[in-house]
């Protein structure tokens, strides 16, 4: 590998600096900052999973929360029903597995269509899940939300480390996957489906894999977050507004970069909290900033770090 040009290395050093800060943070930061970052890191995994599907497979998924919600609720319900007879880790794994199954179930009809129709199909999936949760209130806790008896730990720095490691590992896997042969084929089919087919690649199969991987990490992150917060509710895991935040995070950070999605998520959550003293205005201001970034720096934070010049 030849040396990267300077702008890329600026990105590298920024990343390294961010990593170092993240590593040292538990020594200095208060439990509150750690708690905030814990949530941000889980959201980062949501956004990275979304980016894999959009950026690489070229499919705009309006329903990331469908996968997250299935993972979170499966894990939460299992624990609420069977605790203490079941280990949380088993619940988390079951959540991820359920998300994968849901992902396949969603992908089969969704991959038949494209563009806005794909978007709508995924959106409908979210609405259906939301309706299901409300209707099956006995099982899911309905609008009220599901109280989960167990949490992984209440120690802020332990939670921070779990979330941080989880984000780093999933980020590495997703990033690696995006640069791996599968990622390249996915990108090729996202760019030009016909040509990818003519080169001998089964486009549908690869997109399905992207769906499964995206579903796995979304579901896993959702399940972990349930056992961090000790509660699962439509408003925090399934609602369309949660999905919107994930999409905005990924686009804000820079599409097709995986890492950018994580940056966007940390920024959104962090800014929202930083501006919390402004009360009701916080979300408004964050949205305005995000809109400006999207309009004037379409390549997002990663694009800005690269110095605007696209190689």
């Amino acid at each position, binding site marked *: 590998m*030849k040396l990267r040009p300077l702008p890329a290395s600026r990105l590298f050093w920024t990343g390294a600096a961010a990593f170092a800060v993240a590593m040292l943070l538990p020594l200095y930061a208060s439990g509150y900052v750690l708690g905030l970052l814990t949530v941000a890191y889980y959201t980062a995994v949501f956004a990275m999973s979304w980016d894999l599907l959009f950026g690489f497979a070229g499919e705009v998924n309006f329903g990331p929360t469908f996968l997250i919600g299935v993972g979170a609720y499966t894990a939460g319900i299992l624990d609420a029903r069977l605790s203490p007879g079941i280990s949380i880790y088993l619940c988390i794994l079951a959540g991820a597995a359920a998300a994968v199954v849901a992902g396949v179930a969603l992908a089969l009809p969704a991959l038949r269509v494209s563009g806005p129709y794909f978007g709508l199909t995924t959106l409908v999936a979210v609405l259906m899940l939301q309706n299901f949760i409300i209707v099956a209130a006995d099982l899911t806790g309905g609008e009220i939300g599901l109280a989960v008896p167990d949490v992984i730990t209440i120690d802020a720095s332990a939670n921070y480390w779990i979330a941080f490691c989880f984000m780093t590992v999933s980020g590495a896997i997703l990033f*690696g*996957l995006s640069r*791996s*042969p*599968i990622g*390249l*084929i996915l*990108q*090729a089919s996202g*760019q*030009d489906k*016909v*040509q*990818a*087919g*003519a*080169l*001998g*690649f*089964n*486009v549908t*199969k*690869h997109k399905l*894999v992207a769906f499964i991987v995206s579903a796995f990490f979304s579901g896993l992150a959702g399940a972990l977050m349930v056992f961090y917060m000790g509660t699962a509710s439509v408003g925090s895991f399934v609602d369309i507004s949660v999905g919107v935040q994930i999409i905005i995070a990924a686009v804000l950070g820079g599409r*097709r970069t995986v890492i950018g999605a994580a940056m966007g998520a940390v920024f959104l959550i962090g800014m929202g909290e930083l501006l919390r003293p402004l009360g009701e205005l916080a979300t408004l201001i964050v949205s305005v900033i995000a809109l400006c970034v999207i309009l004037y720096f379409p390549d997002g934070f990663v694009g800005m770090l690269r110095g605007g010049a696209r*190689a």
Partner: protein
Amino acid sequence: MTQGMSAPILEVTNLTKRYGGLVAVKNLSFSIAPGEILGLIGPNGSGKSTAMKSIMGVERPSAGSIKLDGVELAGLPSHQIARKGVGLVFQHSRPLARQTVLENIKVALLPDKLTHLFADKDTDGKARAIAARVGLAGVLDRKPATLAFADLRRLELAKAVARHPKLVLVDEPFAGLTASEVADFSQLIREFRVEGRAVLLVDHNVKSVSALVDRVLAMYLGEWIAEGAAADVMRDETVRRVYLGGALVSTARAESLFSDRTPVLQVENVGVCYGKARALQDVSLHVHEGEFVSLVGLNGAGKTTLFNAISGLMAYSGEIKWAGRPLRPGSPAQIARSGIVQCPETRELFGEMSVRENLDLGGNALGGEECARQLNWLFDLFPILKARQSQMARTLSGGEQQMLAIARALMMKPKLLILDEPTLGLAPVILETLSRALDRLRETTKITLLLGEQNVTFALPHADRVYVLDHARIVWEGPPDRFEAEAAANYL
């Protein structure tokens, strides 16, 4: 290399492809032997591209059989056909923008397996070898966006050969390339022959591929019309009629008859690029007020591009002047309002609106009375439109749609009418009606006409002067009666 030396590797029998009611390919049969290059030619709309796509599995054939080494391909998805040994060199490509040339080639070398998380060690070597072979060795680490157009085409070629196809399909191999690049490419394609691969070249005319092919198959309106050695096909009567039409008649008025000293339309050194591809290069032409000028050229020669540049739909270098003043930077609508009205190849009718509504929209800038007068005149010119007034535009036949498109353009009372390929896909009967209408325009109005055509038979009788556009350049200019002698051979 002659046929029959070995058993054919590709056998196409009675291939048919329908789109709804339209038959794009009809009972086409042919075969290619290993180490043979077959040219599949035909004018635009002849079905040659559809035939190629059907072989690749991009389109699903409606009927017929396609056998590669005796294995039926018809109906398989394209990735399976690719794995059975067919490769396609695309004309336009969208390579991976963030990856280097080398990485782009490596993608083509990857197996279609999900377990394959890391590229094989020898992939790199293989990719470099392929790159060296197609002449990309010097640009391996560059990103596609920085490549010259010819190198992008090389990259396509590299991707297609990466899988060692037994049959290579090449779509318009030389479009947009310079003469020396054409030579390089021809050499690369000849190497396929040496390696024993079968090659199918798809192009518009015989001339461009004649030096390379072993055999040529000509198609017209979806059907087989001639097959044989390039020289024989060029001499074939049917082929000549398709490309040149019958006897050429001309009623040209000499250029000196047009009294205006500065021509009303002046196109000066215009160039247009689509990304890296040169669509127009240093094109200059002029049209006098009231003159009928034909611009002939095959599909892809750049006619539509030139017209779109004039209409302000496309950025260009050079200068286009209208009545002595530059057209830039007027918006397309402004240009149309200034009297330059284009009737495009695609017709751009409002399909869900009635014929009358389409015409009324053409007369949107006219007052009520003037509009009615113009409408009457047009109904006189195309009586069929009067009868079809309340019918939806999309339900009209092709010929009627073309008449409507022309009439709609004329509703704007243009000073210069640009007609792009009005005869495309139309039956001979309709051509006559159109012919008569153009004659009437020439005789009874002061309108200026710029007609773009690949159908020379239609273009020449209506022209006072002719330009020939070939591969983005003007290659010939003169009166229509000298066309056959000086330019026709070039044209086949």
